[in-house]
C-alpha cells in the first residue's frame, strides 16, 4: 500500500525550495541588490507563467484548441484595475474580481463554442478574444481605446505567491480524477464519453478555470503596469501565450512555466536590439519547432521523483 498523504518528502522538499527561492529574491529586492528591471521582469514572468499554465489546462490537458486567451486576460486586467482605481479595493479583492468575471465570461462563451472542434474552435476563440478587446475599446468607463491608468498596487511577494497558489490549484486539479477526465477528452473524446465522462462539462470546466487564472494574471498585470490599453490584449498576445505553451511542451505544466520564462526573458534580453528582436524571436520559434515540434518538455513533467526511493512513488 502506498503512502497517500500531503506530508511526504517530495512535497516538503518542494515547499522548501519554493520558500528558498522566494526568500532569496525577496532578500535581493529588499536590499536593493536586484535591479528594478529584474524585479519587473520577474513579475512579468509570474504573469505569463499563470497565463501559460492556464492556457495549457485548456489546450494541453483538455486538448481544446483555444487561441483567444488574451481576451480573458483583458477582462481580468480591466476589472481588477477598476476595483483598484475606482473603488480603492484591496489587492486581493481586485485579483479575485478580475478572475471571477473572466471565469464567468469563459463559462458563457465556452458553453456554446466548445462544441466546435479543431481549427474551427481556434478561429472562434480568436474571434472572441478580439471581440473582448473591441468591447473595451468602445466603453468609455474603461477609458476606451485610449486606455486606463491603473498605477502600481502589487509587489513581488504578492505576484510570487499568487503565482504559486495558481500553479498549485492547476496542478492539483490536473492530478485528480477530474484532471484525468479532462485528459481523456484530449485523448479520445468518443471513448471518454463512452466511459461516462461528461465531456462537455469538463471542456467547459477547464475553459472556465483557465479563464479564471487568465483573469488573475491580467489582474496582476494591470496592477503592476501603470497604464493598460485594449490593444495590449490583441490576438498577437494570445499567440504569444500559445507560443509559450507549445514551446514548453503542450500538456506539460513545467513546460508551460519554462516556455513563459524563456519567452519573457528573451523579450527583455533582446530589447537592446529592437530591429532584430522580432526577427530573432521568429527564427528561434521556427527552429525550435523544426527540431523539437513537441516542445522542450514534450508532455513530460520535470519532477523530483528521481530523488525518491524506488517504489515510493505516490499519487499526491
Amino acid at each position, binding site marked *: 500500500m502506498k503512502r497517500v498523504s500531503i506530508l511526504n518528502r517530495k512535497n516538503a522538499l518542494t515547499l522548501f525550495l519554493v520558500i528558498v527561492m522566494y526568500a532569496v529574491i525577496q532578500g535581493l529586492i529588499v536590499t536593493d541588490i536586484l535591479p528594478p528591471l529584474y524585479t519587473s521582469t520577474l513579475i512579468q514572468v509570474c504573469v505569463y507563467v499563470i497565463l501559460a499554465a492556464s492556457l495549457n489546462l485548456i489546450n494541453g490537458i483538455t486538448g481544446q484548441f483555444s487561441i483567444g486567451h488574451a481576451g480573458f486576460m483583458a477582462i481580468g486586467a480591466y476589472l481588477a484595475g477598476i476595483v483598484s482605481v475606482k473603488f480603492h479595493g484591496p489587492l486581493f479583492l481586485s485579483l479575485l474580481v478580475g478572475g471571477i468575471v473572466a471565469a464567468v465570461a469563459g463559462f458563457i462563451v465556452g458553453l456554446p463554442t466548445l462544441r466546435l472542434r479543431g481549427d474551427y474552435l481556434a478561429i472562434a476563440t480568436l474571434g472572441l478574444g478580439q471581440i473582448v478587446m473591441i468591447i473595451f475599446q468602445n466603453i468609455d468607463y474603461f477609458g476606451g481605446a485610449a486606455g486606463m491608468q491603473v498605477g502600481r498596487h502589487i509587489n513581488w511577494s504578492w505576484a510570487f505567491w499568487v503565482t504559486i497558489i495558481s500553479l498549485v490549484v492547476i496542478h492539483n486539479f490536473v492530478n485528480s480524477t*477530474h484532471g484525468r477526465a479532462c485528459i481523456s477528452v484530449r485523448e479520445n473524446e468518443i471513448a471518454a464519453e*463512452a466511459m461516462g465522462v461528461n465531456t462537455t462539462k469538463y471542456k467547459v470546466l477547464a475553459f472556465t478555470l483557465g479563464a479564471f487564472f487568465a483573469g488573475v494574471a491580467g489582474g496582476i498585470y494591470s496592477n503592476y503596469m501603470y497604464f493598460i490599453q485594449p490593444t495590449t490584449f490583441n490576438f498577437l498576445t494570445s499567440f504569444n501565450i500559445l507560443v509559450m505553451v507549445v514551446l514548453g511542451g503542450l500538456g506539460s505544466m513545467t513546460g508551460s512555466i519554462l516556455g513563459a520564462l524563456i519567452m519573457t526573458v528573451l523579450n527583455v534580453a533582446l530589447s537592446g536590439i529592437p530591429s532584430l528582436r522580432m526577427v530573432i524571436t521568429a527564427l528561434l520559434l521556427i527552429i525550435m519547432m523544426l527540431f523539437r515540434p513537441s516542445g522542450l518538455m514534450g508532455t513530460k513533467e520535470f519532477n523530483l521523483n528521481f530523488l525518491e526511493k524506488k517504489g515510493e512513488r505516490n499519487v499526491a
Partner: protein
Amino acid sequence: MLKIGNLSKSFGGLKAVSNLNIDIKDGELIGLIGPNGAGKTTVFNLITGVYEPTEGEILFRERKIDGLKPYQVTHRGIARTFQNIRLFADLNVIDNVKIAYHQHAKYSSLGAILRLPSYFKGEAEMEKKALELLKVFRLEGKAREVAKNLPYGEQRRLEIARALAAEPKLLLLDEPAAGMNPQETHELMELIRWIRDTFKLTILLIEHDMSLVMGVCERIYVLDYGTIIAQGGPDEIKSNPKVIEAYLGEEAI
C-alpha cells in the same frame, strides 16, 4: 434488462437500421452477428447514445435511454468497447482504467484542489480497484506502461477492463476477438464467460468469429440490411437457411 422496440435509424435517405426488436434478459450472454455493413455497430451506437434513433425506443431496466447522451447512458449502467480500439493511447494502463472509474469518484474538484482527505481516500480507493481489475486481465505488471505500447491482444483486454471499470450492468463488446489468433480467441471466450459470472453482467457482443459466438453466446440475433432476420440458440442459427443465405459468398460458417 434491455428492450429495443421498433428501432430505426436512417442517415439521409439510407436506412441503416429498421424496425429492430431485441429483448435481453438479466444475465444473458447474447451475440449479434451479421455480414459486413449489416448495421451491427450502428445498433451499438444507438444503444449507447452516439446516434439518436429516427424511430422506436430503447428501454434499459424499464427506463427509456434513447435521447440520452453517451455518458448518461454509461451512468445508467451500459459500457462498451470499440471495434477499432479507442484507448487513451498516450496514457498509461492504470489511468485508462481510472478514467472509467471517474463517474464513481467520491471527491469533488474542490476536494482535489484543496487536497482534502476525501481526495486521498478517493484516489487510494480508485488505485486499489483499478489494480484489482488489471490483475483479472493479467495487466497489473504493465500498469505504468503507456497504452499504445501494449501488444494488440493486451490492448483489447485493456479496453474490456476499462469498460468494466465503469461498473456496468450491461456490457457491449464490439468485435472483441478481432485480430486475435485462435489461441487468444479461445482464452477470450473463457474470459468473457468468467466476467459474466463474476461481475454478474449481461453481455451483448458483436463478433465475426463464429467459433467464439457459437461457443459462448446463449442466444444470437442475426442482422442483415438493418433488420433481424433470425434469432435463437447457436444450433438454431447454424441451421437457419436465411442466415446461411445472408452469409453466402461472404464468409463460410
